[in-house]
């Protein structure tokens, strides 16, 4: 209970009191407080338990570097956010927050036994201990560790909030609205151009917010910036710098408001492209490393200062400052002037400037030079400290209730590092500073090292009579890494900071080592007796601070997650009870159950109706490309395996497309509409890929060809009408096309009208039945579909979906690209050498078909499989073996690619790729499954109407 509210001072609005709850207990604060400042004002010094040892932890900092004070904020159902840093949580009335990592309560935590057993948890403990036996890892170690470790609990309810996103462009982006950032924005604004200034805090000002002497200047400057048209965003964190000054920032829009006041998106993702970026992110104070430096009430001096001067809160009634740097003295003096009782200033240095000494004397503050804190008494809060003289270790105890550390400053070079700017070691600063960059980027103020923090020295660990190995001297508070862990890692042979970091986990917590990296480096350097620059430096990665998934998703949530493409007939399918499946980005009707029909029953009915009478199918998702120009036939001839030049206008051909490696990648029917115009179709999923491949060859290999490509996928709605009654169904609707078999044979295309709208009518079949594919401009697709459906009623027409389409084509042995092929199947493998133009000197992939591996014996070939038991439908993807009695691992010679129950045949059928498959005709193979191996005979891929008599009617 050491913290309390000062009578006056700070930027808080004492006229607006706020109440809130922390761990079920009521607290009071003021507008302008953060959760951290209000809790400290309420005497709460214990904020959480540490990750590994469950040690009691308090607030360390008042900025984003805070490693300890992680809380869960509850804004109602679905709006529970764990792992928020208490100093970054703006206080609002009714705020509800909980501490984390404790069971059953913050003060009494069972896991704290880990701390007593601390000697058993050295660096690399997890790596070394929990490796064997393997079964124990899954059953024992992992569940136990998971229960003990981890930070806050992941939310389980759906997040009801929505999130915004935008792009923005400016000539200058300034990151950080402290004095240096404001000055940079001011300079640029005066010369014109768009300037954006962003800052992560609740209000702009940065370090000036903890310095009342600068408040008048701050207010004046912000007014000037507004007048100059500078866009200023607070609560906006630049989380990453990417190529060519592309900066991603997250703006928090509503979390600072009471839930009842929040409207609109919760957060907004800013994707900013800037001509120039100025980094003005300031610097982070470094903790000192000594035994007991993590007891609640041990904080950074800068935090003590901000609490007193910005929030009007004293961290204790008797505050000691432990400094290796002048800034600790200045903070102590400023706090004393604000009414905080400074019991003593301890400095590891033998001497400091006479000004500081005199100022401390004037305020009556006890000063201990050449001394170090070597111990902290108290477990849940600071009760006293032990001081030692650095030379003779003469110790004495000093009662106090807060201890502030001033270990010098680490410039915030995270974004500089993201931009792959180089860093140079500055011995005087004891830190890495920005050096060179290829971006139009510069650092100003504290983060460039250009800031008068005063003098200081860098110490790895404070002098102590106790060896480091016996101290609980923490370097990384969030990951519970002690100085001795780093020393141990070095002793065990780790030399590079990248390895030391991974072995000890120093700097690997959610704070990315904002307060620990440099201390870790110094300790490794000292242990190895090598300069810091020889140890290396870890790389900072985005995001600068942890972010919500919502912010990163932006618009892409729920219905907007990704586009779901629907055909113009989709509405009809939905209204008629279709069950859908997604194919590429498209939603397609899979089958149309009648009443309570199962999928199997529906598909069997749809299949039989199509084979016996007529079925209709929405094939609009097929890719379509209009290939136009005098060289259109030549172009297709070079691209597809088939010959195209002799194809007469009005006729169609099945085209097989290989990649240059000789493997099948797409197929489809193309119709020659005129000498210089083809209507080419592709698979649904291959539409964009095939068009891209065509453009590639056209633009880069054959730019001499006069031919152009236009995607017409969405121009045409396509209705397949298939079955013996197909002609009778469409005949009354079609005008200007002679549908007779003589005038309009299989694999022909005609232009005319259907239902008074223009059509490209293809006589094609993917079912083996008499079939037509009606292409009409998409705007008429629904009308024509309904007209065909109505006209088909007297013929018993059914609408069928993709599942029936799959069964019907499998009965005919027609392949589906990507199902029966997988990018390693050649035309010969698929039994499709008939599709290769034998006289063609070249086509894409031809040369590869002669490569040794593609002509070798024993390649997997597409075959049919008939199970011995006709009722058994094989599992697609199941492996195939010759000898089911062979011990595991068995010799697998192929797998099932397609498998269905065929209603027309009254039994199951399957397609499979099998090594040397065509030579195995009649052989019985086996498909091992959990219930036993299934015997199946190798047969032809054509199961139905092998002679093709049903087509030619």
């Amino acid at each position: 209970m050491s913290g309390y509210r000062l009578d006056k001072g700070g930027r808080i609005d004492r006229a607006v009191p706020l109440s809130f709850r922390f761990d079920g207990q009521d607290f009071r604060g003021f507008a302008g407080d953060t959760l951290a400042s209000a809790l400290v004002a309420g005497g709460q010094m214990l904020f959480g338990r540490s990750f590994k040892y469950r040690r009691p932890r308090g607030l360390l900092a008042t900025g984003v570097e805070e490693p300890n004070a992680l809380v869960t904020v509850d804004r109602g159902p679905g709006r529970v956010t764990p792992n928020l840093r208490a100093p970054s949580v703006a206080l609002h009335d009714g705020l509800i927050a909980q501490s984390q990592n404790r069971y059953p309560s913050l003060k009494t935590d069972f896991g704290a036994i880990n701390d007593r057993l601390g000697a058993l948890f050295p660096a690399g403990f997890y790596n070394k201990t929990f490796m064997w036996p393997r079964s124990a890892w899954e059953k024992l170690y992992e569940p136990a560790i998971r229960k003990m470790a981890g930070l806050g609990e992941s939310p389980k309810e759906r997040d009801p909030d929505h999130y915004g996103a935008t792009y923005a462009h400016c000539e200058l982006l300034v990151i950080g609205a402290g004095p240096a950032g404001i000055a940079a924005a001011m300079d640029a604004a005066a010369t014109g151009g768009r300037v954006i200034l962003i800052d992560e805090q609740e209000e702009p000002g940065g370090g000036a917010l903890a310095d009342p002497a600068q408040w008048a200047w701050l207010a004046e400057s912000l007014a000037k910036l507004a007048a100059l048209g500078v866009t200023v965003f607070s609560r906006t964190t630049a989380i990453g710098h990417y190529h060519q000054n592309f900066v991603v920032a997250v703006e928090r829009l509503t979390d600072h408001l009471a839930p009842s006041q929040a409207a609109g998106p919760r957060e907004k993702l800013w994707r900013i492209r800037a001509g120039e970026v100025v980094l003005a992110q300031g610097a982070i104070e470094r903790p000192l490393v000594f035994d007991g430096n993590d007891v609640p009430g041990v904080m950074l001096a800068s935090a003590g200062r901000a609490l007193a001067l910005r929030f009007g809160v004293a961290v204790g009634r008797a505050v000691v400052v432990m400094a290796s740097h002048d800034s600790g003295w200045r903070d102590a003096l400023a706090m004393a002037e604000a009414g905080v009782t400074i019991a003593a200033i301890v400095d590891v240095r033998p001497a400091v400037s006479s000004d500081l000494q005199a100022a401390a004397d004037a305020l009556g503050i006890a000063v201990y030079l050449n001394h170090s804190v070597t111990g902290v008494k108290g477990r849940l809060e600071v009760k006293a400290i032990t001081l030692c003289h650095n030379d003779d270790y003469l110790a004495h105890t000093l009662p106090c209730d807060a201890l502030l550390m001033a270990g010098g400053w680490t410039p915030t070079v995270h974004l500089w590092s993201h931009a792959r700017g180089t860093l140079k070691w500055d011995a005087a600063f004891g830190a890495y500073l920005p050096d060179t960059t290829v971006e139009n980027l510069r650092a100003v103020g504290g983060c460039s090292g250009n800031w008068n923090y005063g003098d200081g020295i860098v110490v790895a660990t404070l002098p102590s009579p106790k060896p480091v190995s016996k101290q609980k001297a923490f370097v990384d508070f969030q990951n519970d890494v002690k100085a001795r862990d780093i020393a141990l890692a070095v002793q065990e042979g780790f030399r590079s900071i990248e390895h030391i970091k991974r072995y000890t986990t120093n700097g690997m917590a959610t704070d990315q080592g904002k307060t620990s990296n440099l201390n870790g480096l110094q300790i490794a350097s000292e242990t190895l007796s090598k300069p810091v620059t020889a140890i290396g430096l870890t790389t900072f990665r985005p995001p600068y601070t942890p972010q919500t998934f919502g912010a990163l998703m932006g618009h892409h949530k729920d219905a907007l997650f990704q586009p779901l493409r629907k055909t113009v007939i989709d509405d009809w399918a939905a209204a008629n009870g279709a069950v859908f499946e997604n194919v590429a980005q498209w939603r397609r009707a899979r089958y149309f159950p009648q009443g309570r029909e199962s999928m199997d029953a529906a598909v069997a009915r749809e299949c039989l109706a199509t084979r016996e009478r007529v079925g209709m199918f929405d094939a609009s998702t097929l890719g379509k490309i209009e290939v136009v120009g005098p060289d259109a036939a030549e172009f297709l001839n070079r691209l597809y395996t088939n010959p195209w030049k002799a194809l007469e206008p009005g006729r169609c051909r099945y085209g097989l497309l290989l990649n240059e490696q000789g493997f099948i990648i797409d197929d489809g029917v193309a119709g020659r509409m005129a000498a210089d115009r083809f209507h080419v179709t592709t698979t649904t999923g291959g539409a964009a890929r095939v068009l891209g491949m065509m453009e590639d060859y056209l633009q880069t290999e054959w730019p001499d060809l006069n031919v152009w490509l236009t995607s017409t996928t969405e121009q045409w709605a396509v209705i397949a009408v298939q079955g013996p009654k197909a002609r009778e169904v469409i005949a009354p609707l079609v005008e200007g096309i002679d549908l007779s078999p003589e005038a309009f044979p299989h694999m022909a295309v005609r232009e005319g009208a259907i239902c008074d709208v223009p059509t490209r009518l293809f006589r094609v079949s993917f079912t083996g039945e008499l079939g037509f594919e009606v292409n009409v401009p998409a705007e008429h697709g629904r009308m024509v579909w309904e007209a065909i459906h109505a006209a088909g009623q007297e013929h018993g027409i059914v609408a069928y979906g993709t599942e029936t389409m799959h069964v019907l084509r499998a009965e005919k042995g027609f392949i589906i690209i990507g199902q029966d092929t997988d990018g390693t199947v050649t035309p010969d493998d698929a039994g499709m050498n008939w599709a290769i133009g034998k006289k063609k000197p070249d086509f894409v992939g031809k040369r590869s078909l002669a490569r040794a591996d593609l002509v070798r014996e024993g390649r997997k070939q597409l075959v049919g499989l008939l199970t011995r038991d006709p009722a058994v439908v094989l599992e697609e993807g199941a492996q195939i073996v010759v000898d089911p009695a062979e011990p595991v691992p068995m010799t697998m010679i192929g797998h099932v690619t397609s498998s269905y129950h065929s209603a027309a045949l009254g039994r199951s059928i399957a397609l499979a790729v099998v090594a040397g498959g065509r030579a195995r005709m009649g052989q019985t193979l086996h498909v091992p499954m959990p219930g036993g191996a299934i015997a199946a005979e190798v047969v032809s891929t054509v199961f139905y109407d092998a002679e093709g008599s049903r087509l030619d009617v």
Partner: protein
Amino acid sequence: MLLIHCPYCEEDRPEVEFVNGGQAHIARPADPSSESDADWEKYLYIRRNPRGRHHERWRHIHGCGRFFNAVRDTVSDRFETTYKAGEPAK
């Protein structure tokens, strides 16, 4: 996200409008049937993976639609230059 100068549009445009097309200046042999297996393998599969200057193809697929060539430093990701398809390597 990179900014890429399209030599056809003559503008710097955002990377999301482009697709990468792999190593540049690998011409399809005029008569593949006369290529030896070894040469054909080189054409199909053998690619450079340089540290530093790299000639590569890009397509302004969501812009002018054109394929073009670029010299990009694979270490810094900086584009040294971009130029139209058919122009000699830079």
